[in-house]
Structures are given as structure tokens and as C-alpha cells.
């Protein structure tokens, strides 16, 4: 188990460094993308800044909470886009026969597809997330570590959710569009405070569209640390990773039998 985890981590990091080197080939574009993304995210905070100049708190949420929410959601998104960038285009990889290549290599197919791509602009999200996170806490190594752990958890939830959504392409044609809408919805909900939503909506946000585990619960853990919360988060992350894996490999069986909806026949 432990050696396996070590091997997986090593594999992810190797792809990470190759992707990073690749992005560095165009240093100028890389830097400007980071800056654009950084400014872009600051703009989104602007609305909350205006709103909180008019009101004191929002169901217990202050501007500082919003900043942490943004920090963790952007960081989680960055984890997904930098480490597991393949999750963005998984359905087209499936539909266009791109899995063949990974099937011929001796590494877990799903993990290999996920780590094979990386988005340089997401470094802007990461820098932004870290910067505003540090504005809301007294910086220390412990806090930094907490941030890293929380965004890794959120990133895994986002990635797993994307894998589930994109795996629909194994069963239905035009799955790409649906998957894009679903992952976009998860990201959007992760950027709004839990406090504004009705009870029913909240329930959905902790189950079907798990924005609660991407950002709400992590923010709460920062606020009032408790082991049950941490346990709940860890339990959910593990659960959704396993579910995503299960669904993907179920779909892969269909792929291996060549009976996809979008079979490009013989060749």
C-alpha cells in the first residue's frame, strides 16, 4: 500500500516536471498567462469587496471567509489543472480513440491519462490562491502545510468529479458537452459561500455537485478545526476517488469490447 502510494506519487511528479519543462519552453507566454489568470481572479473578488462594504456579515460569512473560499477553490482548481490536466479533455480522449496509446503502456490507464496534460495558466490560480490565503492567516509553515493539504483534497474531489462526468462518454454520445457543463457548475458553486444557499441546495452541494467538499468544508476546518470535519473530508475524498475509478474502469470495459456509441468501426 505504502510503496504503491510512493510509486504513484513519483509517477505524478515525473509527469508534473515534464509538463513544467514543456511550459518553460515558452517562458514569456507562461508568465503572461499566470499574470492574466491572477488579475482575472482578483476581479471576481471585487464584487464581494463591494458587497461587504455594505453589509457586515452574510449568515456568519465575512469577507475574510470569502477570501479563504477563493484561495482554496482556486488552489483546488490549480491542482486539478496542473497535476491532472487530462481530466479536462477525458471525453474527447475516449471518443477519439486516444486511450489506445495509454492502454499499450504499463501504467494505470486512468492515472496516466490524467497526468498527461497540464495547463500553464493554472499556475496563476495557484499563486493567487496562495497569496490571498496568506493574507487571511498569520503565515507559518503549519498554515502553508494546511493549505497544501486542503487544496490537494479539493483538487482530488474536482478531478474525480470530472472523471465521473467525462466517463459518461463511454455510454452516451455527445458526453463532452454535458461533462463540461457539470464541471463548470462544480467550479462555480465552489466560488460562492455556503451561507447564501437554501437547505435543499446545500444538500445537493454536499452530494451530487460536491462543492461543499471542494471549498465549504475546508474553509470551515480553517475556521474551527475539528477532527470529525477532517475525517469527513478525508472519507469523502477517498470515496469519490474510488467511485470515479470504478466508473471509469467499468466504461473502459466497453471501450475494450469496441462497442462504444461512437465506434469508429474497423480499421
Amino acid at each position: 500500500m505504502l510503496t504503491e502510494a510512493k510509486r504513484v506519487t513519483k509517477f505524478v511528479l515525473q509527469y508534473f516536471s515534464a509538463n513544467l519543462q514543456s511550459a518553460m519552453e515558452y517562458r514569456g507566454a507562461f508568465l503572461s498567462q499566470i499574470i492574466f489568470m491572477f488579475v482575472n481572479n482578483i476581479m471576481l473578488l471585487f464584487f464581494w469587496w463591494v458587497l461587504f462594504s455594505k453589509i457586515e456579515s452574510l449568515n456568519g460569512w465575512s469577507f475574510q471567509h470569502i477570501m479563504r473560499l477563493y484561495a482554496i477553490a482556486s488552489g483546488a482548481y490549480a491542482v486539478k489543472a496542473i497535476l491532472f490536466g487530462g481530466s479536462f479533455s477525458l471525453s474527447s480522449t475516449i471518443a477519439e480513440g486516444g486511450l489506445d496509446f495509454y492502454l499499450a503502456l504499463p501504467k494505470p490507464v486512468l492515472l496516466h491519462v490524467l497526468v498527461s496534460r497540464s495547463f500553464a495558466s493554472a499556475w496563476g490560480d495557484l499563486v493567487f490562491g496562495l497569496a490571498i490565503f496568506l493574507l487571511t492567516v498569520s503565515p507559518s509553515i503549519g498554515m502553508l502545510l494546511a493549505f497544501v493539504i486542503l487544496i490537494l483534497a479539493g483538487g482530488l474531489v474536482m478531478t474525480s468529479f470530472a472523471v465521473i462526468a467525462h466517463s459518461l462518454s463511454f455510454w452516451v454520445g455527445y458526453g463532452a458537452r454535458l461533462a463540461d457543463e457539470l464541471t463548470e457548475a462544480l467550479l462555480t458553486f465552489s466560488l460562492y459561500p455556503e451561507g447564501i444557499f437554501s437547505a435543499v441546495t446545500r444538500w445537493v452541494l454536499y452530494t451530487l455537485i460536491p462543492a461543499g467538499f471542494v471549498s465549504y468544508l475546508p474553509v470551515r476546518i480553517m475556521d474551527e478545526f475539528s477532527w470529525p470535519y477532517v475525517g469527513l473530508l478525508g472519507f469523502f475524498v477517498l470515496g469519490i476517488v474510488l467511485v470515479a475509478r470504478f466508473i471509469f474502469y467499468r466504461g473502459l470495459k466497453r471501450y475494450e469490447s469496441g462497442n462504444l456509441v461512437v465506434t469508429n468501426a474497423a480499421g
Partner: protein
Amino acid sequence: MQLVRAGHLKKYLQVAEISLTNRVVYLADHFASSIFLLLILFIFSQLWRTVLGAGGTLAGLDSTGMLWYMVFTEVIVISTPAYHRLVSDEVKSGDIAYKLNRPYSYTLYYLAAHCGEFAIRFVTNLAIGAVFAYLTMGPLQVAWAQLGWVIISFSLAMVLTFLMNFSLALLAFWFEDNRPFFWIQSKLVFIFGGMFVPVEAYPAGLRIVSYLLPMRYGVSAPARLMVDFDYAFLWQVLLGQFIWATILSLITAAMFQKGVRRVHVNGG
């Protein structure tokens, strides 16, 4: 810019019509892209109800007003067609040279296409947004008697948006890559166009800046007129829209003249 003679008006109307029908073909596709509109409206319906729950107001609007305000700002922005990309490409590739000897004005051609497409997208997006707002927040108190004025303001906003995008597209004459300008502009629209909250709610400094910039007159002002009509506000808005339309027309015309000269010098 050339002046339009009555006889010429017909062909521009036809351009607008074609661009409009062209859009109808993609209606299904278009409705699918409205999902994001519904998502953001859903979030804000809950947000405003929480923030402005019992009789609270922000910049004079209650929660219902706020959501309807957002329906209009969002619909204006997502209905704005992307002809500026086409123009940028034509300028960069030099294809614009071929379009120049056709018997129409390049600028007016794209203005017509812009308006045609904007109109159809506006109506369909508004239908979706309005149904949603009606179901979640209840009806909008429309000032029916003054609706004519509001429509005039929306039309001016449409022209204003075109002029902003078109002039930035023409920057392609001088800049290899003009995308950063569009990017900056979209951020300015977000803030100074008051996408989420009326600019009247901003702190004094930002409010004044937004009064001076054209973005507010293209997005926030007409939306606000629609949800909270007021004559004093109307005259202020129309004046602002008129001034900015004039300034941007002059700038566009000057840029176009200078740019086209470069095309002729460089041989396209």
C-alpha cells in the same frame, strides 16, 4: 464613416436579417449555452434573498430588482456577438483589402451584422432569464408607458458595444496581437459596467470613474432603467450614451482611415 443614403439602408437591413436568421439555425446550440446563465441566476437569486431578505435594499433595489437587474446585464453581455474576432483576423491576414472594394461600407456592414445577431440572441437569452427570474423572484414592475425610452437606451447600448469592440479590433492594424486589449476590456465591463451590482452601489471614487467610462452606458445604465425607471436618470443616461457614441464613432473613423492607408501602402 460614410453617410447612409435611404436607398442604401436596404442592403444593411438585409445584412442584419441574414445575420439574424443565421443565428436562428443554431438555436438549439444557443439554448444549450444558456445553461451558464441559469446557473449564475440561480446562485444570485439565493444570494440576494439572503442578503436583502426582509426589505433590504442595495443602491435602491430590493432582492427582486437586483435579480432582474442581473438578468439584463448578463443578457446584454452574453448576447454581444464576437464579430471583432473576424475583423481582427481580416485585418491581420490582409483579407480586409478584398472587402474594401465591395459596394458597401466595411464598418456599417459589421454594425448591421452585429445588430442583427445581437437582437436575436438578446430576445432568446432574455426569454430564458426572464422566465427564471419570474419563477424565483416574481414579476418585474415594468414601466410600460416609458418602455419606448428604455428600448432607445438599449439600442444605443448595442451600438456603443459595437463601437467599443470594433475599435479594439482595428488595433490589429498596429498590434500583432490585440487579444490582451479585449481581455482588459472584458474586465473593465465586469467592474465599470456593473455586471453584478449597479455602479451606484460602489464607493465614491470607483463610482465616479464608472460614470466617466463608456462601459456603464453599455451595460449597467440600460439594465437599471429597465428595473427602476426614472426620468432624471434617463436623461443622464441618454446624454452619456450619446456623447460616448459620438466620441467612439470619431475614433473608429479616424482609426479606420489611418489603418486602411497602411493596407494600401503595404499592398494588403
